[in-house]
C-alpha cells in the first residue's frame, strides 16, 4: 500500500520532470497529453488504493514509513511520510479525479496557446503539490504543499504575463496568501513548542494536555492561514483577481481544490479545534459573514468569471461555517459536491469564453468575451455547454435533489440544531442570494436574444472540452443522491465517520424535513426571482439598478474593499519604504557614517599644512626634535 501512495504522489511530479526534460523532443500538443496521462494514472492508482484500503482503514489511519528525515535537530523531528485515512483518500480522489478531467479539458482550451507546455508543467506541479498537502503526515509537509500550491497559483494567474494586470493579480494572490501564512507559520511553531512534535498523530493524541488559552491561540493562528488560502474575510481579496488566469485553472485551483485547503486543514486538525474553547465560534462567524458578504457582491457582477469567483468565496464561507459549528462531515461533503459543480460551472464558462473569443475574432468585434452583457441566447448555439451549465447552476443554487442541495442543507441544519439561530438566518439568506445570482447568470448568458454579433456566431466547443463537462454534470447532479442519502447517514457519512468519530456531535431534537422544505423554498424563490427579472422581464433590471443605486454601486464595486486596503496598507507601505530608503537610510544612517569621515577630513585639512614639501624643512624639524631630546636627557628629565 505504501508504494501505491508514494506513486500517486510522485507520478504528477514525474510528469513535470518528463515535460521539462523532453521539452526539445516532444511536440507541444503531446506535452499536454503526457501531463494528462500522469494525472490519469495517479487517479487510477487512487481508485485502486480506495478499493484496497476500504476495509483496512476502518480501524485506524495508515501512515507510511518515513522515506527519509527532513530535519532532526535535538527535539525538532520532521520525517517525510504520508498519512492515508478516509479524509485524505477522499481529497486525493477529488484532486486527481477533477484534476484529470480539467487536464483533459485544457488540451482543448489551451490548444492554440504557445505556452501550452509551460501551462501543463505548472498544472502537473500543482497536482503534485496539492497531493502533498493532503497526504503529508505532519504540519511541515502540509505547509510545504500549502506554499507550493500557492506558487502554482501565482504562476498560473500570471500565465499570460505580458499583461501587467495578470502579473499584478498573481503577485497579489501570493502576497495575500503569505500574510495568511504568517499566522499559519506561527501556529505551527506554537504547536511544536506546546506538544514537542509536528507529526499529526503525536499532536492530536496530546491535544488534551494543552491549556485552553494555548489551544485557542494555536487554532486561531492556523485559521489566519486558512483565511488566506481559502479566501475568507478579511483576506479574500486575491481570489476575484485570480480570475486573470486561464479558466481551467480557475476551475481546478481557484474553485475545486486549492482554495479548499483551509477547510481540509481545519478538518485535519479537528482534534485541536474541538478542544479549543472560542475558536470554533470565530470560524463559524467568519464563514457565515464571508458567505453573505461575497454573495451580495456576486449578485451584481457582470463578468461571467467574477460571479463564479465571488460565489466560490461564498461557498467556502459555508464550509467554514460547517467546521465552525462542528459539522466536519458536512463541511467535507460540501467541499466534495462543490468541487464538482463549481468545476463544472467554471469549465462551462470557459467553454463560453472560448467560443465568444473565437466568434469575436471571426466577426471582428472588439468586446470583452467575459462580459455577460454581450452574451445571451447561447443555449441554442452551445447546447451541451448550456445544459451542463444549467445543472451546475442548479446545484450551486441548491435546487432540490441536486448535490448542492443536500450538502448545503446539511450545513444549515447542523447550524440550526447546534443552536446558532443567527448564523442559520445568515446562511439561509445567503442561500437565497446564491440561487438568485446563479440563475441570473444562467439566464443572462444562455437565454434571450444574443446581445452581440459574437454571441450570434458562437458555436459549441470540441468534444475534448464538452465530455469533461458531461462527466462533471453527472456528479454535480447525482453526488448528493448517491452519497448523501439517507440524510446525515449516507455513504459519505459512513466513510468519514472513523476520522471524526471523536468529535462528531449529532444535533437531534428537530425535524430535518422541516428545514429541508425551507431550503427548497428558498432556492426555488431565488431562482424564481431571477426568472421573473431576467426572462419574464417582470421588472426591468435597469430600473431596479436605478432605484437601488447606492446599494447597487456598493455591491458592484465590491464594497470598495480593495480601495480601502490600498489606502490603509498598500500605499502607506510604499510611502514607508520610500521614507526609510531615501530619508532614514541615505540621510540619517549613511549620513552619520559619512559624517564621521567628513570630520576626519576637516581635521586633516588643518594637519596637512605641516607637510610643506621641502626636504630641508623636514630635516630642520628633525634636527630640532633631536636637540630637544638631547636637552631633555642632559637635564636629567627636567
Amino acid at each position, binding site marked *: 500500500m505504501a508504494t501505491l501512495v508514494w506513486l500517486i504522489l510522485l507520478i504528477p511530479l514525474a510528469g513535470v520532470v518528463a515535460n521539462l526534460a523532453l521539452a526539445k523532443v516532444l511536440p507541444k500538443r503531446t506535452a499536454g497529453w503526457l501531463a494528462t496521462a500522469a494525472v490519469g494514472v495517479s487517479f487510477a492508482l487512487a481508485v485502486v488504493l480506495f478499493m484496497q484500503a476500504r476495509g483496512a482503514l476502518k480501524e485506524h489511519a495508515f501512515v507510511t514509513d518515513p522515506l527519509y528525515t*527532513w530535519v532532526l535537530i535535538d527535539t525538532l523531528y520532521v520525517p517525510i511520510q504520508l498519512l492515508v485515512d478516509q479524509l485524505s483518500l477522499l481529497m486525493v480522489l477529488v484532486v486527481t479525479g477533477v484534476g484529470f478531467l480539467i487536464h483533459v479539458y485544457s488540451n482543448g482550451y489551451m490548444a492554440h496557446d504557445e505556452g501550452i507546455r509551460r501551462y501543463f508543467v505548472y498544472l502537473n506541479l500543482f497536482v503534485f503539490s496539492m497531493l502533498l498537502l493532503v497526504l503529508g503526515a505532519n504540519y511541515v509537509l502540509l505547509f510545504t504543499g500549502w*506554499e507550493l500550491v500557492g506558487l502554482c497559483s501565482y504562476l498560473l494567474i500570471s500565465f499570460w504575463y505580458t499583461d501587467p494586470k495578470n502579473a499584478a493579480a498573481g503577485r497579489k494572490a501570493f*502576497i495575500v496568501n503569505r500574510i495568511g501564512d504568517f499566522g499559519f507559520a506561527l501556529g505551527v511553531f506554537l504547536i511544536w513548542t506546546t506538544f514537542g512534535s509536528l507529526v499529526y498523530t503525536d499532536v492530536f493524541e496530546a491535544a488534551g494536555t494543552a491549556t485552553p488559552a494555548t489551544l485557542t491561540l494555536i487554532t486561531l493562528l492556523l485559521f489566519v492561514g486558512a483565511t488566506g488560502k481559502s479566501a475568507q474575510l478579511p483576506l479574500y481579496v486575491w481570489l476575484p483577481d485570480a480570475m486573470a488566469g486561464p479558466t481551467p485553472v480557475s476551475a481546478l485551483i481557484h474553485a475545486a481544490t486549492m482554495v479548499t485547503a483551509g477547510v481540509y486543514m481545519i478538518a485535519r486538525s479537528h482534534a485541536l479545534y474541538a478542544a479549543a474553547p472560542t475558536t470554533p465560534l470565530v470560524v463559524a462567524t467568519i464563514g457565515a459573514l464571508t458567505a453573505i458578504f461575497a454573495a451580495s457582491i456576486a449578485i451584481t457582477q457582470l463578468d461571467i468569471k467574477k460571479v463564479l469567483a465571488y460565489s466560490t468565496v461564498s461557498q467556502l464561507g459555508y464550509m467554514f461555517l460547517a467546521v465552525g459549528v462542528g459539522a466536519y462531515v458536512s463541511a467535507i461533503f460540501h467541499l466534495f459536491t462543490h468541487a464538482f459543480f463549481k468545476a463544472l460551472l467554471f469549465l462551462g464558462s470557459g467553454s463560453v469564453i472560448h467560443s465568444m473569443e473565437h466568434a469575436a475574432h471571426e466577426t471582428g468585434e472588439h468586446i470583452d468575451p467575459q462580459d455577460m452583457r454581450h452574451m445571451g441566447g447561447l443555449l441554442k448555439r452551445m447546447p451541451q455547454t448550456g445544459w451542463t451549465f444549467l445543472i451546475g447552476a442548479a446545484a450551486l443554487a441548491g435546487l432540490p435533489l441536486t448535490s448542492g442541495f443536500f450538502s448545503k442543507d446539511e450545513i444549515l441544519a447542523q447550524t440550526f440544531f447546534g443552536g446558532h439561530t443567527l448564523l442559520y438566518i445568515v446562511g439561509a439568506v445567503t442561500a437565497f442570494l446564491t440561487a438568485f445570482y446563479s440563475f441570473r447568470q444562467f439566464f443572462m448568458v444562455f437565454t434571450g436574444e444574443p446581445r452581440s454579433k459574437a454571441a450570434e456566431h458562437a458555436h459549441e466547443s470540441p468534444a475534448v472540452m464538452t465530455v469533461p463537462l458531461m462527466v462533471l454534470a453527472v456528479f454535480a447532479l447525482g453526488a448528493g443522491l448517491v452519497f448523501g442519502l439517507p440524510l446525515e447517514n449516507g455513504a459519505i457519512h459512513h466513510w468519514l465517520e472513523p476520522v471524526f468519530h471523536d468529535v462528531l456531535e449529532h444535533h437531534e431534537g428537530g425535524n430535518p424535513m422541516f428545514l429541508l422544505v425551507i431550503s427548497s423554498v428558498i432556492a426555488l424563490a431565488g431562482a424564481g426571482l431571477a426568472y421573473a427579472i431576467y426572462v419574464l422581464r417582470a421588472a426591468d433590471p435597469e430600473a431596479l439598478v436605478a432605484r437601488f443605486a447606492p446599494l447597487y454601486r456598493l455591491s458592484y464595486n465590491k464594497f470598495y474593499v480593495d480601495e480601502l486596503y490600498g489606502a490603509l496598507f498598500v500605499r502607506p507601505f510604499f510611502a514607508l*519604504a520610500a521614507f526609510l*530608503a531615501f530619508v532614514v537610510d541615505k540621510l540619517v544612517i549613511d549620513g552619520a557614517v559619512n559624517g564621521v569621515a567628513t570630520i576626519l577630513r576637516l581635521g586633516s585639512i588643518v594637519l596637512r599644512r605641516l607637510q610643506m614639501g621641502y626636504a630641508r624643512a623636514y630635516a630642520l624639524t628633525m634636527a630640532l626634535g633631536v636637540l630637544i631630546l638631547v636637552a631633555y636627557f642632559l637635564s636629567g628629565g627636567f
Partner: protein
Amino acid sequence: MNQFGLLSAIIFVPLLGALGIALFVPRNRMNWVRGLALGTALVDLALTIWLVARFDPTSADFQFVERLPWISLFGGNATFLYYVGVDGISLWLLPLTALLTAVAILFSWGSIQTREREYYTLLLVLTTGMMGVFTALDMFLFYIFWEVVLIPMYFLIGVWGSKNRIYATVKFVLYTMAGSALMLAAIITFAWILVPFTQQLTFDLTVWKQAVQSGLWEAGVVSDRMETLMFLAFVLAFAIKVPLFPFHTWLPNAHVEAPTAGSVILAGVLLKMGTYGFVRFAMPLFPQASQQFAPILAGLAIVGILYGAAVAFAQRDIKSLIAYSSVSHMGFVVLGLAAMNPQGVSGSLLQMVNHGLSTGALFLLIGMMYDRRHTREMSEYGGLWKVVPVYAIFFLIVALSSLGLPGLNGFAGEFMILIGAFRANHWWAGLATFGVVLGAVYMLWLYGNVFFGPITKPENETLADLNRREILALVPLVALIILIGVAPHMFTEPMQPSVARLLQEIGGTMLTMR
C-alpha cells in the same frame, strides 16, 4: 589526528595558483590565465569535497588539525601558532567558498576584459584569505587572514568596479578596518589577561576557551566592564561585516559598484565571516556577555530583517535591492544565533550556506543581464520572459529560494531559525516571520517588473538567452538550492555535535529551556 596537510592544501592551493598566474604565465596567453584560475579553483573545490567526505560527523572536536609553532618571541614567552582545523560549524563554509570562487571565475571569463592577470590573481588570493578565516584557530592567525581578505577585495572593487567604485571601495575598507582595529585591541588585551594563567602570551583558541570554561570571568581577575568592552569590540567588528543594522550602509555601495564576481564573493562568503566570527569566537569566549546581549542582538537583527526588506522594496537598482535583501537575510542568521538553542544555531549555520548560494546566484544572474544591457535599472527591463525563457526560469528558482519557498533551501534555514527563535522568545519569531512576508513582496515585485508585462524597451527584444558557459555556472548552485531544500538533514546532521558543544560552552540551552 590527521597530519597530511589537507587543510593547508585547501588554504594555500589558491595562493599557489595566484603565484603561477602572476609570475609564470607568458604575456598574451590570457587563455592560460583563465584556465589556470579555473583549474586552481576546481582543484580546491575537489579538496574541500574530499574534506567533507572524510569528515567525521559524530565528533564535536576539531578535525584535520594542523598545529605548528609559527613565530616565537621573547625567548618563547610569546608564541604565535599556525593552527587550523575544521568542525561542524565551519565544515560547509569551505566547499561553499571554493564553489563560489569557481563559479565566479567561470562567469568572469566572459565578463572581464581588462587586466585579467591581476584580476584572477587577486581572486585567488582572496580565496586563500577566506579559507584561512574559516579554519584558523589561533586568534592572531585569524586576524591576519581576516585582514588579508580586505586587500584583494579593495582592488577588485576599485579597479574593475563601475562608476562610483572608488568611493565604494574606500568606504568598504575603512568601515571594516574601523571594526577590526577594535577587535585587534580586544585580542591583544585578552592575550595579556591570560598571561598569569598560561605563563606566556598565547593566541591559541583552545587555550582561551579552556580558560573561559575554567572560570576566567568568574575568577574576578577581570572586571565585568572589561569583559563587556572586549565582547563589544568583537561584536562590532563582526556586526559591521555581517552587516547588522545599523552598520550596513557600506554594503549597498560595495555591491552596486563591485564587478559581478566581486558581488558574488562579497555576498556569498565575506558576509558569512561576520556571523562565523560571532559563533566561533564572540559567543564561546564571552558566554555571559553574549547571553546578556542576546536580546539586543536579536532586536537589531529583527530591525534589520524588517528594515532591510522595506528598504529593498524601495530600490530601483536591482543590485541595490539584492544588497538590502542581504541585510534582511543576514538578520535571520544573527537572530538564529541569538536564540542560542540547537534549532536556531543549526538553522543559522545552514542559512549562511543558503544565503551564499541564493544571493550568489542572484548576483550572477544580474551580472549576466548587466553584461548584455549594461544597466541595473529595473525600469529598463520588463517582459523578459518572452525573450530569455531559460534565464527567467533560473531567476525564478533562485528568487523563490530567496523568498523562502518550501522545497528550496531558503525555507529550510528560515524554518529552523524561526522555530528556534520562537522557542527562545515568541515575539522575536512573531516579528521576524513578518519579514518572510516582506521577502515575498520585494522579490515578486522585482521578478514581475523584470520578467512580466510587455517589452517596453526595443533593446530588450533581441537579448540572447544564456549560453552554455553561463548555464554551467548556474547549474551547481541551483542543484544545491534544491538539494538543501529537499533534504536539509544531510547538511545539518554533521553540525549537531559541534552545535551541542557550543551551546554547552555558552550555557545557552539552559537559558532557553523554560
